[in-house]
């Protein structure tokens, strides 16, 4: 599976970004790491260019909140991104807030998986669960389709 990742906005905190890349590799993903200081357009361009299955955005200084408000609008300008798995993680607010408040907000911004101050491997496990759930769902749907068409 292909993953595009990077740190959104003018955030230059690079340490976790490198570790995400290493960990994704270790879990067998093909990684396209755009590094720090990456703008939303660059993320979506890279997804189109690489044909990525997952877009994993991270933020340390909390700028993500400002940028994320534009995600849906921007994504709608690109074609064929409906199946893209959108994930975001890190410190998702400037200052502090509860995960219970933040997660619904970001889901509303268009993210499937939201990790606020979650340990790296826990976050990557969530991604794996999400992917296998979706596969199971797709298979069920297909089975139903086949069933329906044979009936």
């Amino acid at each position: 599976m292909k993953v595009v990742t990077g740190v959104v906005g003018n955030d230059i905190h690079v340490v976790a970004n490198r570790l995400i890349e290493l960990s994704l590799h270790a879990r067998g993903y093909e990684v396209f790491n755009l590094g720090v200081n990456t703008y939303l357009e660059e993320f979506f361009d890279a997804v189109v260019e690489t044909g990525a299955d997952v877009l994993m955005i991270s933020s340390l200084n909390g700028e993500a909140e400002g940028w994320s408000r534009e995600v849906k609008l921007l994504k709608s300008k690109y074609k064929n991104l409906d199946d893209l798995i959108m994930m975001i993680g890190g410190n998702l607010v400037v200052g502090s807030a509860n995960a219970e408040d933040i997660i619904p907000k970001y889901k509303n911004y268009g993210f499937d998986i939201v990790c606020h101050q979650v340990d790296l491997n826990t976050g990557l496990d969530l991604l794996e669960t999400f992917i296998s759930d979706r596969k199971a769902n797709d298979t069920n749907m297909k089975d139903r389709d086949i069933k329906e068409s044979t009936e």
Partner: protein
Amino acid sequence: MSLLQEEREIILSNEYVDNFDFAEVAEFVTNASKDLFISHHFNRKNKMLVQPRGGFPTYKKQFALNEFFVHANVDVLPLTIDSNTRLNDYATAKKMLRLSEENDVDMLNGYPLVNHGYRTTRKMITHFNKPVSLRHGTPDARLLIETAIASGIFEIEGGPITYLLPYSKNFPLDKAFLYWKYVERVCANYSKLNEPINRESFGPLTATLVPPAITIVIQLLEMLLSLEEGVKSFSVSFSQTGSMNQDIVMGAVIKKLAKFYAEQINCSDAAIHLVYHQWMGAFPTNKDYAEQLINMSTVIASMVGADKIITKTREEASGIPTKEANAKTVANTQYTLGILNGLPNIVDEEEEEMLTLQVKAIMEAVFNDPADTLWRKVFNSIKNGVIDVPFSPHIINHNNMITIRDAKKNIRIIKRGNVPIPDRCYAYEKAQCDLTKDTTSIVNDIIHDIGIMQ
């Protein structure tokens, strides 16, 4: 008109700049008090010099900070520059300075030197009559350095590699080399008038698991780039690694090799100094623990035999420190230095040999690059990964080197990437670590190793 003078005029044609009177500046430098020159204090070598970090937007607050430092018995005053000036955005710096002055709230994370101008700043510097060190992080520092020297700031930190690779994603590295070449020449020219202007490289780099060999190579190369332009006083530096033994070994090797390579280019007349940075990684949020850490750094700096120590504060984990906290560290550090007597002499020959071999192999690979000038050789070496800085955000950096800590907390190279670490040294480095683990556990170890002081 010389090319240097032409370049100078281009830099000065900028609406935010002082109207430079270079004849007057030259006269000022020629007659400036010897006390303003850190190179003069280094030569007298009475003790390790203590220098904090610090910069506030307004003249008033900077002046007050300096007063606190002087009361705390500081040896070298800092002048830390704000981030807008570092990116040559003088318009924003000007606006934020005015807001800071009018509202008594700091809207800048440092002193906007270009906007204050040299005439104003010089008053403060000559008033305190202490050497001042310019701390910034600017890839194009040409105007800043002209203003600094005209102000009476006779130590300039930075360099094309050490101020770019840790701080920037895509500022062109080749441009940084050329801009810094200008800085070196200006420093060299003013050095002829009085005591030499001291240049200092920024050894901590990303302060995140950078192996000693990479730090030393970059220190030596910035030193050579500076000396070849005529600079006569230079400080190499590094920050606390997390292992006392590794710090001591690094200090010994960098001193020997700095001398060796300066001689190779016939610059043995230049004075080379060693600067030690107190822990530059993630700090404990507990302020009492932070003080313990700072104290330990001071002890190690003494073991390393540093000529200057740059201090942190107990408020490191929580943002820009208050002047009180900042001055407190200076006083504490001076106290520790005063009572540290009868230090043992520790030599680890095997570690020194391994490190020396690594540094020499990388230096040789840089010199063997076919480019015609040293800066191009260095540029190419970074571009092709012969020099690779762990955790640099810059796009030119390869990021193929992986380092972890061994059981004694020494930083070890477990993946060398394109860096020509000799096979024997590579085997030695890896032999110190447990490499049976899978990548997930190694990543967890790295996370732990980065935060060891927290």
